[in-house]
């Protein structure tokens, strides 16, 4: 099952912030199945898209070594529906990070209009919890990042290209 809820990274600064775009298209079944006659992207999938952008932001801080999961969704406000044909701009900002988890502030805009605000918390699964080993098969996350043009825009805090980490 495809589970890509952001189309492209447009900005990424390690340890700071990341942005991406999501085009809402009618060829996704979920768009017209969610609310018949009102083709919209389900709000939960906007959260998922923000979590994918923000999750990579958190993941990269630790060189993609941690087992990062979205653990909690805090305050969320939806200001407007995301309709078929809309392009959403996702912005995520790393708010807190520790060796146990991280929090990210995520927003979605349609044009200049603020569409969603959210607070996301990520946790790091300890070794042996639920499953052993990494959460991705080797190469899968790298393929996803390439599809989303992550490496085209991702830079370190001092402006150098983010490397392709050996463990990806």
């Amino acid at each position, binding site marked *: 099952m495809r589970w890509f809820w952001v189309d492209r990274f447009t900005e990424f600064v390690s340890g700071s912030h990341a942005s991406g775009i999501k085009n809402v298209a009618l060829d996704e079944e979920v768009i017209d199945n969610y609310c018949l006659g009102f083709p919209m992207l389900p709000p939960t999938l906007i959260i998922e898209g923000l979590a994918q952008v923000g999750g990579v932001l958190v993941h990269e801080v630790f060189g993609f070594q941690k087992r990062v999961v979205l*653990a909690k969704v805090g*305050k969320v406000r939806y200001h407007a529906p995301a309709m078929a044909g809309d392009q959403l701009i996702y912005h995520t900002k790393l*708010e807190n990070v520790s*060796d*146990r*988890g991280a*929090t990210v502030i995520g927003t979605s805009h349609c044009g200049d209009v603020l569409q969603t605000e959210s607070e996301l*918390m990520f*946790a790091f699964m300890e070794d042996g919890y639920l499953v052993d080993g990494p959460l991705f098969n080797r190469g899968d996350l790298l393929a996803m990042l390439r599809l989303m043009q992550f490496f085209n825009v991702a830079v370190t805090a001092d402006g150098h290209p983010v490397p392709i980490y050996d463990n990806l």
Partner: protein
Amino acid sequence: MYPRCSHVQRLVERPEFLSLTNMQEDTMTLSQDEIFAKVQEALVDALGVDDDEATRDATLVGDLGAESIDFLDIVFKLEKAFDIQIPREELSPEDILTNSQYVQDGVVTSDGMAELKTRMPWADLAKFEENPRVQDFGNLLTVGDLCSYVDSKVNP
């Protein structure tokens, strides 16, 4: 330097504002009520409870329904609200509770209690000490304990 708006200029020249800023520079202390208000706000946000539920006597797990993942959220919110760092072991003495030197048959020994009191001087351990089963430790902390912990950090 940005030009200061006239209404801001008027505000900062008012005596009560000057006394407030002077007080902060002199002491930087927070009152118990200020600490409680911020802790309560963090808990309301993190746990989705009402103000009147997050009383000083309420236990985080039993009364407010906090789950393990919520503690990470609470820690982040407290760190931000009070501009402090909260090391994992200060609120979660797992290393003591899993150490066979301090726990026997699921019960914290007297040495273990002494260690807990040293680690968590801000917590009221009296009730736990009556029957110090490790399995009950998770439901020990109250909102008041959390306030005392923060107080120990911000008003050392």
